[in-house]
């Protein structure tokens, strides 16, 4: 039997700071019976210069990414709503003055899918009936809420896990203050936002925070360490994989 294949775009933040989230994504996809193709030449989607007002410096990277993931017409799975949003929404507009590349970008945009959106109807959650009970606070990233519309699937997925109680913080739809280079260029207001987000997440009473975007996680966990707040920040892929691991079905 030949397996259905998918590409994984691991994203630069996961590659460097959260490789375990990337591995968990691979394991979950394999659990769903898929073969994961991981092109070694992948780097970043090009969002940082694009959002900072330097779109020209992201065009070449976008083209490289488009070409890399167009060798075969496979779905491209991205364990980040932010990077998936960049590909789905901004690649086509970035290529607006080049009809051939625009078309290729459009093609990739249609094949690209955020990880949880892809997994939602594929994972056998009933296997988790015997798993130990878990309480988590869900941080919905702005991209998941307002770009890829994945946030509702994040909530649904956690609801479908019989052993998990997911809590939403107050101001669940407000930004955590990361915003890429915003956190470096407007550090005071960015930190004020992160401080509030941390507080609201901790007020849920959960000790574990889960989210599907590593930018938010990096900012929240960095702030927490620096300010002696104690919680664990996990990528959703890691958290889900861990649950299956606990009942030995990963």
């Amino acid at each position, binding site marked *: 039997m030949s397996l259905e294949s998918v590409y994984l775009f691991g994203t630069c933040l996961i590659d460097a700071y959260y490789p375990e989230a990337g591995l968990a994504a691979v394991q979950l996809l394999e659990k769903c019976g898929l073969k994961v193709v991981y092109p070694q030449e992948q780097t970043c989607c090009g969002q940082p210069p694009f959002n900072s007002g330097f779109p020209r410096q992201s065009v070449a990277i976008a083209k490289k990414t488009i070409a890399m993931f167009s060798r075969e017409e496979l779905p491209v799975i991205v364990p980040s709503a932010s990077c998936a949003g960049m590909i789905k929404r901004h690649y086509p507009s970035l290529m607006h003055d080049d009809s051939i590349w625009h078309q290729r970008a459009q093609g990739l945009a249609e094949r690209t899918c955020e990880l949880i959106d892809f997994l939602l109807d594929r994972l056998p959650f009933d296997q988790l009936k015997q798993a130990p009970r878990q309480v988590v606070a869900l941080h919905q990233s702005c991209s998941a809420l307002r770009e890829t519309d994945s946030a509702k699937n994040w909530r649904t997925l956690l609801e479908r896990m019989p052993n998990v109680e997911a809590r939403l913080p107050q101001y669940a739809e407000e930004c955590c203050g990361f915003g890429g280079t915003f956190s470096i260029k407007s550090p005071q*207001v960015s930190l004020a936002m992160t401080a509030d987000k941390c507080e609201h997440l901790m007020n849920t009473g959960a000790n574990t925070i889960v989210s599907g975007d590593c930018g938010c996680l990096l900012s929240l966990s960095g702030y927490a360490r620096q300010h002696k707040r104690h919680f664990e920040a996990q990528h959703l892929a890691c958290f889900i994989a861990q649950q299956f691991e606990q009942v030995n079905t990963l």
Partner: protein
Amino acid sequence: MNFNDRITEALGNQSLRTNLRGAMDFLRSKRLLSIEKPDLWEAKRKQAGHLRQDVTRNLASLLERLEDNCTRNGMQVHWAENADQANQLILDICKQKAAESMVKGKSMASEEIELNDYLARHQIECIESDMGEFIVQLAEEKPSHIIMPALHKSQQDIASLFQAKLQEPADPDDVDQLIDIGRKTMREKFKHADIGLSGVNFAIADKGLLCLVENEGNGRMSTTVPDTHIAIMGLEKVLPDLNELPTLLHLLTRSATGQRITTYLNLISGPRRNDERDGPREVHLVLLDNGRSQMAADEALRSSLACIRCGACMNHCPVYTRIGGHAYGSTYPGPIGQVIAPQLNGEEKYSELSSACSMNNACGDVCPVGIDLPGLIRTQRSRHAQRSFKSKLEAGIWYLWQWLHLHPTLYRLARQAMSRRLIARLLIPGSWRSGRGVPVSARLSLHQIMAKRKQSSE
């Protein structure tokens, strides 16, 4: 003080933070409650978006039609290219009428040209009659929000202000009493003012009508009690015909204050006619350009002229929620201000505003006419990047960054280097380090993990 200093000051002001959060919570929840049918809302948003974008493309012809029809209705129409011309025009009218005082309904266009200061220098007293504007004027401040000018103030602040400036003792817990004090002071001024000035929410081109929504009745009084009414509007406020008004009002009032309809809806069709017993004897309409026609000609920014000034973008902006309107230093704060202030108030000073945005798209999500605010802020960032030296340096860094990310081997080396604390420490900017520490990348990257996995499976 530069923008960053003003941000720091605002963030350190705890009572401001509390007042802002409270006001934003209130406005957000009221808006949400007023949208009963989300599907209908989306349909109307789409319709209004198309309509307003059509207006931005046909401004010149619509404004000519508006001028013709307003003139036919007996109004006197004036064109002002910039703030100086608008102020001069209004002063000339005041002089013609030998006016000593003016009452003002709420008008952001008049804030934009700083009319109060200008007229005061020419010995004409301007009295703000919108309660929020009245408070801000009394405190010798500027509005911090386009719809709720005094939302940065608590009831306690207002009671102390009335005590100090009007010698009226007031109970801070009694809102009705506070409003009564304001009303009493303003009523006196209405009786004697020679001129009433107002803004315009929409101007209907094919009827020559001015539409003004408000809740306090001060708009109706400023436009009907004094003998002369001057209306001032940014020239993007024009609409082709009356059929479109209900949709836009539906969106405007819900987005702004969460109201299904405002207490007052004024449709002004010109001065008092011979057989009429009240109303102003003269109505002047000042069409303010002040950078707008340039924006209309600028393909990349034109869509921002679709704005109907509801303020929802600032109400939902997490940055505005924490720093308030004054920190921006521009007439229009928040996301829409970040987009239009460089054009209206000067690029030199205001293009840096675009930095204070986390690209969270809460603004674009609520904009009742579907303006892509984050996209426009991105455009302003790239415009800003072409202006300052620091940005040219940054452009270079991004080229280097791009080069690195186009070469997988170099990228892997750089990533490897970032797993050394010392190197990470050197490369991570201080502004990140001070609040969030030094992130050290993992010993084994995903690339390496996946390469190993592949090897062992082969």
